């Protein structure tokens, strides 16, 4: 009797516990009755008929899930190859459709995203993909992939397709790096030339100033010299007017004396030449 009672109580407890369901916030419990979906329960404590009449399955509708297709090599519109790494973020938008729609949800999602990515990349140039086209690629892929998914009634929503990496294959990476260093060289050449120009011009302006300054110095010297000469002339003229002959002789003699101090003086008598000094 006691044993029977214990068995009965345990069975009752088992039935009770299979009837209770705790749904965390962000989750949805889908209640199946004899295999058919009967209703859903959102957050809180719920109750349903015991197994085998009813059972429940929990679907997390708030979690952002990540699907990672790995690195894929794709052909661009200008027939270059690029290696691309995507991360797809998605979540369950409709728990019932999610339960009934796809047998292989994530793999199908990856297939669809790769398929539309490949189509879009096949219209883009490698240069645009490696630079400004990346954001466009992400956005176009998201839109196109979601449109395809909606046709299948998957219950899935794509939150983001993130292009984590897009680069030329390793075999040609050096050639692409050389282009960026060539772009650097282009800058360097121009900078060096600008450096030359910014050194050359001040130098030349210095030379120009030197030339005009030396002309001004010449000018000043010339003026001073002329007025010195004229002053001397004026005073000698005065002396000459006072005593014309003696002044002339005096001046001539002084000049000859000065010449005699520097130049060699030879005397020519008939055919004979006599050296007087040196």
């Amino acid at each position: 009797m006691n044993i029977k009672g214990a068995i009965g109580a345990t069975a009752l407890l088992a039935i009770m516990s299979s009837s209770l369901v705790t749904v965390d916030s962000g989750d949805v419990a889908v209640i199946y009755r004899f295999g058919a979906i009967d209703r859903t329960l959102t957050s809180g404590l719920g109750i349903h008929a015991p197994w085998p009449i009813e059972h429940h399955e929990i679907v997390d509708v708030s979690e952002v899930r990540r699907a990672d297709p790995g690195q894929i090599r794709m052909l661009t519109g200008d027939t270059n190859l690029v290696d691309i790494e995507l991360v797809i973020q998605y979540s369950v938008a409709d728990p019932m459709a999610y339960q009934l729609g796809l047998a292989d949800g994530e793999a199908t999602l990856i297939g669809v995203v790769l398929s539309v990515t490949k189509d879009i990349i096949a219209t883009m140039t490698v240069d645009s993909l490696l630079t400004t086209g990346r954001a466009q690629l992400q956005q176009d892929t998201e839109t196109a992939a979601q449109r395809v998914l909606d046709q299948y009634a998957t219950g899935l929503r794509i939150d983001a397709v993130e292009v984590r990496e897009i680069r030329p294959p390793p075999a040609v990476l050096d050639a692409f790096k050389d282009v960026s260093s060539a772009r650097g060289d282009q800058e360097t050449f121009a900078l060096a030339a600008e450096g030359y120009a910014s050194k050359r011009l001040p130098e030349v302006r210095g030379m120009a100033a030197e030339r005009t300054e030396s002309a001004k110095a010449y000018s000043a010297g010339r003026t001073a010299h002329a007025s010195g000469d004229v002053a001397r002339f004026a005073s000698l003229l005065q002396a000459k007017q006072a005593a014309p002959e003696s002044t002339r002789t005096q001046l001539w003699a002084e000049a000859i004396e000065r010449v005699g101090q520097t130049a060699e003086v030879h005397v020519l008598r008939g055919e004979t030449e006599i050296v007087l000094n040196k």
Partner: protein
Amino acid sequence: MRRSLSIGLLAAFALAGSVYTVDAREVAVVLFFGKPVETVTEPGLKMRLPWPLHQVVRFDKRAQLLMVEPAEVLTRDKKNLVVEAFLLWRINDAERFLEAVGDPDVARTQLSDLVVSRIAAALGNRDFSELMTTEDTQVAMLPADLLPGIAAVGSKRLGIEVLDVRLRQIGLPLQNEQSIYERMRAERSRIANAYRSEGEERASAIRAEADRKAAEILAGADKEAMGIRARADGAAAKVYAQAYSEDPEFYLFMRKLQTAETLLDEGSVLVVDSNGPLFDALTGGAK
């Protein structure tokens, strides 16, 4: 008493064996001695005759993904491509599916073969340049009639509905990748050269401009310097002319003396005639 109990137990077993459930994700086929008699698509609690009269076979009725193995195809312009297709399909007519293939794995193999041959035929009608182009003329890689064609075969032969056929990836065989790499390298080196020679061009333009400006500055300075000198010379000439006009004869005498003195500097040789006035000066007039 004992007999009625065993009859009751038997009845309970029979009843238990006659009740079954069909899940919302399943389709069930009821077989009578191995022959399909009913397809149950609605989920819920169902009745049947007890074993061995009735048997129930279940299939997943959700859309299933079929990844087709990569296959090499040839475009119309004889370019090799490696395509990786996938297919989304679900069981539509469970009885036909059971009769035709019975086993989902067999269905997969048959579908794969069908898809590869249809895609090969479709891409054989396309030029590579149509598939890969940055022009607006790009056509859909797979023709619009590909899916209906495969779907018709699937429905008729396998009892399935084909929801979609897509190319997951389209690539090149390894040996063809090499030639693409060659071209990519050549293209990059052309671009790199263009950058470098543009840089050199710009640099020499900058240098030439600097040199031109320098020449202009120097020429301007020379012109100014010449002007300054010319004005100074002019002013000096005017000053000398003024002096000259006061006593031309004496001025010329002075100028000659000065010239003679300037010319007869160190190292010059002055030759004096013994009959001239200079010799007279040297001898102090004593003949």
